[in-house]
């Protein structure tokens, strides 16, 4: 009896999981507002001799628009507030907020506006867009993997590399790498 129930549960799980994981981008069409509470924007900068400087932004906002007929016409926009940077070390946070790096007082927003979304698989896409920080704008690319779609909530895992020197934030190179690795989890709610 118990064995039968467990067997059924296991079979149900096997069926349910792939359906959730394999949800196609086309099925996700709609407009979403990024929910900061269940999203995160982490970054990591490698250091000479190993290890790295890890941090995250606590405050950001954004939207994801997935085109019904053509995923390629989808849009991703987000704004990060660099004032909210956190590394676990208040002195490093103050340094990052200062005019040595973000100059958050004069440049309170870092913006990303997508210009093209190219499907690279059933659940993945390459998002190209314009990143603006400290008054400088450059084209950047991010990889987005659809993590799940459930009850009007969509989840993406977004990764990408940005060269900080282009935005006037080259302080500390080469001790600290010029490459900033972004690792974001963006959860959007249909709205």
């Amino acid at each position, binding site marked *: 009896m118990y064995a039968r129930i467990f067997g059924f549960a296991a079979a149900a799980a096997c069926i349910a999981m792939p359906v959730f994981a394999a949800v196609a981008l086309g099925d996700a069409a709609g407009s979403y507002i990024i929910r900061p509470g269940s999203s995160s924007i982490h970054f990591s900068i490698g*250091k*000479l*001799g190993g*290890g790295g400087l890890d941090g995250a932004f606590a405050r950001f906002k954004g939207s994801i628009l997935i085109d019904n007929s053509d995923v390629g016409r989808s849009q991703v926009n987000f704004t990060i507030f660099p004032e909210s940077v956190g590394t676990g*070390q208040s*002195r*490093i946070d*103050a*340094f990052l907020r*200062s*005019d*040595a790096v973000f100059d958050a007082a004069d440049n309170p927003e870092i913006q990303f506006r997508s210009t093209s979304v190219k499907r690279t698989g059933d659940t993945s896409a390459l998002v190209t867009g314009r990143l603006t920080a400290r008054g400088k704008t450059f084209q950047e690319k991010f990889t987005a993997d659809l993590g799940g779609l459930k009850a009007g909530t969509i989840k993406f895992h977004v990764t990408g590399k940005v060269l900080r020197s282009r935005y006037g934030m080259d*302080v*500390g190179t*080469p*001790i600290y790498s010029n490459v900033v690795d972004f690792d974001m989890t963006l959860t959007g709610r249909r709205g």
Partner: protein
Amino acid sequence: MSALPKNQTAGYGWTAIILHWLIAALFIGQFVLGFVMVRLSSQRTAFELIQLHKSFGFLLLGLVILRIAWRLGRPAPSLPRSVGPFERRAAPLVHLALYAFQLALPLSGWALVSVSVLEIPTVPFNLFVMPNLPLGESDTAESFWAATHWYLAYAGIGLVALHLAAALRHHFWLRDTVLTRMITASSHHDRE
């Protein structure tokens, strides 16, 4: 060659003289750099100057080790006969203290960067990664070594001032060779 034994020569050789002035310039330069870098409003410039201070600190440590080895190999020349008994006893003590500060200052700086919770790598002149001393990092240890480095710096520069005043007194007041023999190598060493 002179009949005097090596430790009884009248003057210093070029190696000792060059090391002396190079270390003197670096030591005073490091004091000024250290003083300025913690008082800047630009965090960017401060960061860069602190890295430069660390680079020069390791250069200084290397030169000081070389200098101490050189000094142990050939002790300082004897003082001119005109030097009185008090100075004759004080001079080696001040010199010993100067050597102790030359070593202790870069070492305490190394300890400071090793225990700092900021974990900023030390890469002298961007050439190679200098490993940290095996000391546990913590806020407490960082404050301790920062204070130690600070006190040593001020005491060290005070000692340099005393040493400089003594050298000038020898040259302008006593009119002996104590200062000039640290500017020009003695003929014995020239031939070596």
